[in-house]
């Protein structure tokens, strides 16, 4: 690919006290590509996304978005950069003090200063796109089920038509059918917007459905990347163990004896 990658991470390190979380991440995501990052709990997946968004600052290394270095941006430039991003958080992270439609329209009203009436129309359209009725828009997030909250969070992530969308474990905590509905919505929304997507998940069914390309993170490094269809023939023992969910293998869970 001769194009500048949409997102490029080079040798990114991040530690919290003595605990090294990212230990030299190198990763590229092409324009319009859907990359899924898989890896066990605590391997640094969420921290990596937060570093790209600027919610956490990497200790060393370079993170480029559209070829521009982002690790040293000021808060105003960061705000401008974040217009390019949409994010679906693991726990949905809906604002519980405002209505569902206001959640979806939040970025439009607060970030882009759009008039409320116009933003409401767009919010209702986005809620429709994720299969929710306008009546749901008038409810508060606490009145929704987990699956509906995830769909609202997805509608919020796509509301201002971002160029890049991050999905942090989009199917965690959902039943298999709802998980598949969310996967299909993600594929559809990303395709409709022509956006670049980065998804982090443990869920292999979700990864196979969403991904063009899959990367595996282990002990703070990317240990394998390849096309989604090659995941079963990766030739990497770590990836094989993860994909098949085996307790035995090179990845040893740190379990302390009681």
């Amino acid at each position, binding site marked *: 690919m001769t194009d500048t990658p949409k997102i490029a991470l080079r040798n990114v390190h991040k530690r919290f006290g003595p605990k090294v979380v990212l230990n030299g991440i190198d990763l590229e995501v092409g324009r319009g590509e859907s990359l899924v990052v898989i890896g066990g709990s605590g391997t640094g997946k969420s921290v990596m996304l937060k570093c790209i*968004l600027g919610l956490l600052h990497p200790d060393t290394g370079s993170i480029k978005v559209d070829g521009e270095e982002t690790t040293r941006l000021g*808060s105003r430039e960061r705000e401008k950069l*974040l217009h390019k991003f949409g*994010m679906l958080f693991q726990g949905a992270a*809906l*604002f519980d003090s405002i209505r569902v439609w206001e959640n979806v329209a939040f970025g439009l009203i607060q970030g882009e200063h759009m008039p409320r009436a116009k933003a409401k129309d767009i919010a209702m359209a986005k809620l429709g796109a994720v299969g929710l009725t306008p009546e749901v828009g008038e409810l508060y997030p606490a009145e929704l089920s987990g699956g509906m909250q995830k769909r609202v969070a997805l509608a919020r992530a796509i509301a201002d038509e971002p160029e890049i969308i991050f999905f942090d474990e989009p199917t965690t905590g959902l039943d298999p059918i709802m998980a598949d509905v969310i996967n299909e919505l993600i594929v559809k929304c990303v395709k409709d917007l022509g956006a670049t997507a980065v998804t982090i998940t443990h869920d292999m069914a979700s990864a196979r459905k969403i991904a063009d390309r899959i990367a595996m993170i282990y002990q703070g490094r990317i240990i394998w990347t390849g096309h989604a269809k090659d995941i079963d023939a990766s030739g990497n023992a770590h990836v094989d163990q993860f994909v098949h969910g085996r307790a035995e293998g090179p990845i040893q869970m740190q379990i302390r004896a009681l």
Partner: protein
Amino acid sequence: MVLALQSYSGFSRFQAEGAIATVVVLSVTRELGPVLAGLMVAGRIGAAMAAEIGTMRVTEQIDALSTLSTNPFKYLVAPRLIAGTTMLPLLVLVADIIGVFGGFLVSVYRLDFNPSSYITRTWEFLEPVDVISGLVKAAVFGFVISLMGCYFGYKSRGGAQGVGQATTNAVVAASILILVFNYLITGIFFSDK
């Protein structure tokens, strides 16, 4: 009201009951109104702010704000600081009025003071600086309460326990700072008297 009763029991030993109206109004406007209201608001509003912002922090709502191109300081912290700084003086004004009126009721109906002379004595020795110093204190306390609530809420980590800890810290820090600032502001206004 308690102040009036206590002052009476003390002052009557020296035949100084006439000073009760003045003692009540000065104590309430200078000290008791702002400090008691400040401590109560720290317990009520400071804790609520820390709990709300702390919960937003641990449920990633603050991260969500940032990704929606909204500065959390402008959206969450600044309005609370402005609200605290402007509203606590109003609350203290109400507390002053109720406090002085309570003293009046006790003095007139329980201690058999003459109502008009009580009011005259209340007004006679009350200077604008007494009320203004109390309101300045209230504004500072309101700012401190909101700042502590927002700061500890924003910094909270680790789920429900973290939010509980943030709430406790916000109330304790705000209460201590209220007492410290009370001393400092009193020094600024009344050091030459």
